[in-house]
């Protein structure tokens, strides 16, 4: 428990004053109960939690905000679980004019008229001018308070315990409570406000003590305001300054003013005078014509016009002015100064709207003679709220339940048209689009987004595109989400070569709500396009025959599909003008692909444009997962292009299959050039066309963007060497 002390001091900087001077009791520390500390840690958790949101589907609920809402609800319904008890509070004030305790305090604190109505549950006793010495002002000496505290303790005997005392120079406030109540008092705090010379010396000012008595908050202020008849405005200002300066800290860290309490009492030597000539005042006192004097009482008149103590009330005065006496006598001031008698010493109260009114039990002066003031007391019967734990628990449970229901009802909800999408047959480089419709079927705006699976960074596999990946729907609104499945040469290897199955699970996440899984699947039609040379020469059958290959199977020298394409062109189109330059027919090309993949004869297609077959050759080479001259040799190839010898060396380092394919193609293209007269093709044209598909940079490398004329020429030169110099191979 004591570990919390330093933290609390740090947190409540504005409250430092409260905790000074309170070393003689540990009440404040106990009553904080570590609460402020927890508020802080809770908000740190909030930060941590938020930073983790992206990696986990949980969400942060601000517990402290919820707790505050629950607290407010309970407050609204407190009548259902609160019981009112009557308690007596005794408020006493005495300006002791620097005197030490000399006479019994029984006539004040244990006045039979007071205690006959019931023993007070709380004693709040205020003193002023405890110490008139210069030392008290300058050194803030507190030794004068101890004898008075002792004197009070002796007077109240063993029935009461001291709750707290608070001193500001000569102003002392002591609060005692009946022992039986001590455990029901929490949140005990104090503060001071000095309004003396320079606003800081503290010869004038106020001290305040607040606490929660059962479930009722009580604040008591003891003040000594500026003196002298003509200083009414000064006193009004003192009162306002004190009420603004004094601050406490609530459990949740809010600052509390004196007005944030169920019961507020203001006692002390307020120093307001009677605005009448001395002789008249004395005359009327003799005749007990107090009502006439009260008409000229500065305080009552200021309160009437709301110039001070707004909202406060004072019980009716039916006793003689308590100031100023010759000490030890019953005579008003006989000195040269001849101070006019006045009701300097007062008790005022103010009740919060929510609290029950207080009932007055008696407002009196008491005949203790040692000072030039008479002590005053006022007792009130106040209604105190006490909690009935079982009933409160029931209301608490109901409140929690209501909150849970609201919270669950206000979560976003959506309906999704399907949790499973089958794209069925997927062909290489043929995009297929499917749609999902999500509908906001909840009561609130729903924000959705697709989120990656745990420890993954992308939302889905590379062959799938989601659009949009995030969005917002108002209630009843529908949004269409487009899924596009597209396998290109970058993603085809997984299916063509590695034989992976085509499926994925998408996670559609509703902000502050649930997740939906969407399974995506398709059947990829294996094809020689988007394949690898290595894989194609290992497989003697058409790729779509799923016949397993025996391990001893000999490799083909070149892919059979390549042979079939070239064989067809060789037999049907060598003389065709515009060969490799004119475009093929899309439909025919799809049919050709099917024939290549199924082993079907080209003749089954029917009449066929030679340009379709020519383009198929280029597409076949272009879509190889790895080009004939592998990615890693790309730069070497560019570098070698200026020299035919270097080119020859480079080609000799190609993997066997690639070398075969390269050799086969060059031979074929050389053959094409022998029909130059008919087909009008030049070596340069063929070199440019075929170099771009035989020699490609890795699509993930920056070289991909080298499309300048110099690079194109280098590529073409490499091929050109072989086309014009037959002995290079």
């Amino acid at each position: 428990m004591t570990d919390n002390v330093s933290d609390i001091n740090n947190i409540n900087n504005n409250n430092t004053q409260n905790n000074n001077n309170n070393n003689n009791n540990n009440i404040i520390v106990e009553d904080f109960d570590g609460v402020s500390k927890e508020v802080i840690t809770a908000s740190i958790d909030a930060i941590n939690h938020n930073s983790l949101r992206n990696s986990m589907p949980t969400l942060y609920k601000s517990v402290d905000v919820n707790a505050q809402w629950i607290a407010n609800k309970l407050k609204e319904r407190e009548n259902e679980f609160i019981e009112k008890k009557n308690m007596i509070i005794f408020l006493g004030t005495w300006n002791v004019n620097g005197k030490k305790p000399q006479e019994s305090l029984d006539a004040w604190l244990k006045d039979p008229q007071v205690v006959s109505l019931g023993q007070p549950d709380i004693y709040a006793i205020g003193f002023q001018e405890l110490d008139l010495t210069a030392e008290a002002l300058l050194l803030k000496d507190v030794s004068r308070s101890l004898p008075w505290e002792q004197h009070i303790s002796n007077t109240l005997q063993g029935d009461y315990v001291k709750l707290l005392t608070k001193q500001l120079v000569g102003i002392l406030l002591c609060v005692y409570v009946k022992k039986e109540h001590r455990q029901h008092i929490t949140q005990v705090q104090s503060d001071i406000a000095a309004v003396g010379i320079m606003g800081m010396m503290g010869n004038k000012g106020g001290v305040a003590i607040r606490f929660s008595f059962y479930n009722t908050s009580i604040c008591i202020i003891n003040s000594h305001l500026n003196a002298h008849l003509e200083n009414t405005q000064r006193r009004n200002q003192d009162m306002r300054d004190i009420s603004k300066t004094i601050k406490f800290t609530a459990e949740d860290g809010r600052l509390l003013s004196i007005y944030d309490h169920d019961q507020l009492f203001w006692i002390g030597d307020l120093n307001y005078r009677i605005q009448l000539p001395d002789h008249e005042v004395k005359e009327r006192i003799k005749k007990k014509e107090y009502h006439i004097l009260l008409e000229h009482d500065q305080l009552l008149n200021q309160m009437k016009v709301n110039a001070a103590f707004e909202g406060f009330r004072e019980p009716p005065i039916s006793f003689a002015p308590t100031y100023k006496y010759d000490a030890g006598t019953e005579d008003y001031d006989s000195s040269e100064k001849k101070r006019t008698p006045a009701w300097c010493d007062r008790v005022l109260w103010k009740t919060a709207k929510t609290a029950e009114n207080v009932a007055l039990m008696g407002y009196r002066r008491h005949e203790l003679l040692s000072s030039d003031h008479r002590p005053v007391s006022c007792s009130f019967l106040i209604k105190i709220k006490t909690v009935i734990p079982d009933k409160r628990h029931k209301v608490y449970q109901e409140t929690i339940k209501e909150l849970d229901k609201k919270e669950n009802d206000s979560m976003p909800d959506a309906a999704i048209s399907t949790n499973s999408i089958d794209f069925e047959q997927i062909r290489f480089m043929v995009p297929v689009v499917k749609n999902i419709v999500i509908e906001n079927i909840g009561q609130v705006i729903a924000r959705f987004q697709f989120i990656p699976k745990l420890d993954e960074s992308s939302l889905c596999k590379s062959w799938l595109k989601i659009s949009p990946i995030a969005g917002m729907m108002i209630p009843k609104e529908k949004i269409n989400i487009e899924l596009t499945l597209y396998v290109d040469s970058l993603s085809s290897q997984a299916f063509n070569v590695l034989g992976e199955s085509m499926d994925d699970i998408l996670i559609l996440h509703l902000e502050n709500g649930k997740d939906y899984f969407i399974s995506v699947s398709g059947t990829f039609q294996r094809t020689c396009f988007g394949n690898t040379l290595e894989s194609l020469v290992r497989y003697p059958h058409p790729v779509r025959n799923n016949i397993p290959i025996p391990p001893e199977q000999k490799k083909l020298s070149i892919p059979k599909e390549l042979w079939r394409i070239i064989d067809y062109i060789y037999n049907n189109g060598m003389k065709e003008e515009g060969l490799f330059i004119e475009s093929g027919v899309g439909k025919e090309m799809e049919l050709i692909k099917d024939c290549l993949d199924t082993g079907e004869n080209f003749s089954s297609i029917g009449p066929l444009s030679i340009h379709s077959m020519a383009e198929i050759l280029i597409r076949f080479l272009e879509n190889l997962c790895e080009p004939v001259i592998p990615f890693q040799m790309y730069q070497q190839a560019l570098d070698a292009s200026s020299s035919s010898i270097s080119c020859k060396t480079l080609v000799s380092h190609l993997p066997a299959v690639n070398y075969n394919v390269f050799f086969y193609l060059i031979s074929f293209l050389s053959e094409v050039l022998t029909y130059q007269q008919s087909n009008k093709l030049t070596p340069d044209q063929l070199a440019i066309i075929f170099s771009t598909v035989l020699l490609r940079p890795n699509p993930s490398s920056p070289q991909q963007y080298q499309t300048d004329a110099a690079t194109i020429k280098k590529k073409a030169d490499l091929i050109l060497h072989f086309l014009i110099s037959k002995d290079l191979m």
Partner: protein
Amino acid sequence: MNNNNKIFQFKLVLLGEAAVGKSSLVLRFVRGHFLDYQESTIGAAFLAQTVCLNDTTVKFEIWDTAGQERYHTLAPMYYRGAQAAIVVYDIRSEDSFERAIKWVKELQRQGSPNIVIALAGNKLDLAAKRRVETAEAQQYAEENGLLFMETSAKTSQNVNELFVEIAKKLPKTPTTRPGSAQTQSPPPLPTSTTIL
């Protein structure tokens, strides 16, 4: 000071084979109702529910997960960072009990270090067709330090009790915080504040 108003928040996940009644248990607990035909959960449903104990209040953030095996690989997204788990099986299905045991093992291996695991044998209202003996499950639970209850989302038997037992067993000392050792582990708080 009364601890009653301290709210401790925990993440709880439900795991178990498809159609053992995970969603039904949650809906019985949270909404107090039961559907004879409960749609299968394809995803993860989220609900909040608070349990008031005598001395504290425990708020569960409940993640109800998909039971189908094809979604198994996604489960860690939901049990990671959970301070409590209910592993559910159908008392009429030995397979579902075997699957529950696998879930428990996975949680013990990959879940939060001090995760509170409860084993729930659901569909107690169909005890006539029981295939998993209470004693067998009880013994397994004891050997593995799990809470154990047979429940019926349909009749509500033991449903609240199950969550209350979990709430009681969860550590409620605000000072116990996760070490920073597990970089992936979200904060098994508990966060708490005091009201009134």
